[in-house]
């Protein structure tokens, strides 16, 4: 397979999630590795013909029938034109790229998923993978913070998982709009504050984190204080991953490349590296 050549895909559905964020479902050829063989936390490169190509995290579950789910915030030079895309439009996909969350290492362990804002996209992919074999993992906790209640994504799915007792869910919003009641288990706080009342067994827990860079230092220092080792704190980094194959030179973190060695790193790999947790 040629990693430089996008394979054709077609937009199947577009589900608006908030005013600026949509869930795209694409279909490519059945058994296409771009759709069929990825780990949560890995990414693909999405091409919009005539516009350009961008890295996006997988948001769904690997599929043999070519189905790919992508959660897109319409803020960039490719994602803004995607706002007016329609089902049936042609796009291209390359991937999967990078290193995802090490699912095999999580076997039999407790997992603490921490998502900030759009960081829920790759963690939804992780959550779907965990739910697929729920019996393999111990206690699952999801902490999820967003700007406001209206910006909480995949709320129905998350509340359903909580209702079924599969996942312990705690959410926070920075501020609450006047006219909306918050969902249950959501309070007004900054994301790291959700860790305050959490009781964990630091000996058997991994933390999988994806959120805006600004929260990483706070989350990491609190998790360290709670007794988690640096090897067990996994962070997904965002960088400008232009080519996806380690050649364009944009995404180095220290001497590692985010697109090949990441985007998921353990904190042990990032500690002391300038600019790793901006």
């Amino acid at each position: 397979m040629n990693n430089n050549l996008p394979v054709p895909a077609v937009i199947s559905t577009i589900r608006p999630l908030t005013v600026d964020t949509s869930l795209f479902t694409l279909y490519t050829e059945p058994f296409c590795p771009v759709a069929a063989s990825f780990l949560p936390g890995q990414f693909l490169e999405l091409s919009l013909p005539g516009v350009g190509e961008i890295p996006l995290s997988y948001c769904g579950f690997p599929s043999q029938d070519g189905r790919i789910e992508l959660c897109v915030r319409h803020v960039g030079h490719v994602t803004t034109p995607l706002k007016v895309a329609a089902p049936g439009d042609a796009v291209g996909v390359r991937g999967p790229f990078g290193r995802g969350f090490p699912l095999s290492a999580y076997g039999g362990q407790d997992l603490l998923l921490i998502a900030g804002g759009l960081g829920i996209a790759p963690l939804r992919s992780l959550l779907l993978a965990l739910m697929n074999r729920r019996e393999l993992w111990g206690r699952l906790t999801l902490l999820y913070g967003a700007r406001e209640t209206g910006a909480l994504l995949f709320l129905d799915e998350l509340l359903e998982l909580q209702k079924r007792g599969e996942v312990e869910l705690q959410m926070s919003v920075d501020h609450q709009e006047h006219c909306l009641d918050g969902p249950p288990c959501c309070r007004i706080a900054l994301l790291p504050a959700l860790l305050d009342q959490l009781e964990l067994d630091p000996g058997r827990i991994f933390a999988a984190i994806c959120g805006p860079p600004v929260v990483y230092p706070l989350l990491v220092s609190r998790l360290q204080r709670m007794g988690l080792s640096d090897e067990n704190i996994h962070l997904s980094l965002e960088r400008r991953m232009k080519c996806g194959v380690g050649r364009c030179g944009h995404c180095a973190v220290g001497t590692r490349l985010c697109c090949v060695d990441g985007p998921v790193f353990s904190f042990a790999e990032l500690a002391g590296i300038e600019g790793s947790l901006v």
Partner: protein
Amino acid sequence: MATQFIANHNLAPLLVRLRQSAELHGPVRGDDGVVRFAAIAPGTLPDLSAVRTLLPPKKYLLHPQETILKYTVRAGYQMPVEDVHQIILFGLHPCDLAGINYLDRIFLDDEPDPLYVARRSVLALVGVSCSPDEFCSCHQLTSPLKALFDLFFNVVEGGFVVTSGSARGDELLEKVKDLLEERVVAVPEDARRFFGHAAAEATRPEPDATLPEWRELASRCLGCGACSICCPTCYCFDVLEFCGLDNCSASRVRQWDNCLFKGHAEVAGGMTFRKDKAERFRYRYRHKYRGFGLSQGIPSCVGCGRCRAVCPAGLDLRPLAERLEGGQRE
């Protein structure tokens, strides 16, 4: 020991012979006084006295701007068919040969870059020995990079001692063997001795960001990126897509990018991961002296001196590199 010797007066006939099988390029001084790699016009000689060209030979392998994909509604994205022809690059100094060796490691790995492969396969490398000037630092740092060549011309009294380094080199020698003579010549020390004489290094600790030198260098740096453009081992590229006027076709191009530019680390939404010039400076430093990704542990500075020669602010990373990397001086 007997060597293959070619006298100076036989160089012109040799070039005529080489030109029969391929386009012949080498360092040529233009009317503007700038020495650049370009086609050597028939009847003229390359400027072998010049210490360095303005741009390194990477431009033959990675064009400043090149189409990497074509899109049509009917066919989707397709690789362009690259029209390549044989080129003999004559007059490469060991640093430039080592620079090409570095690019080979990046672009010819397990998943080779198709355009690079096409261009590299038609390029024959002919090296020539040289003497370093005040900007050069190849003689200060040993390097794991190898100055590989097809043919190498070592400058000696009255001519050159010619060595072949590959089957391609043997073929070229065969074409010109009547111009060569076997002669016992005292060959000067191999000008490539600094290359291939160090192992790739294990991970080193992060460069100390608190050193005042960073701030001092960054405060004088104009951020023009000239050092990176003329560096034989800077290969960063940006990727852009242009829609055709018919609105049904597009071409995707990659073009040289520059880690000293603010936009280099910028992502959608305007967030940039290297806001200040000193951070960008260290990013470049890490790549040049520590390497990253496929080149991790391989310093990519080949000591050609171009960055120092062209820097409008007269910046020189050498003292800092010697202090931080240390221990490699011959």
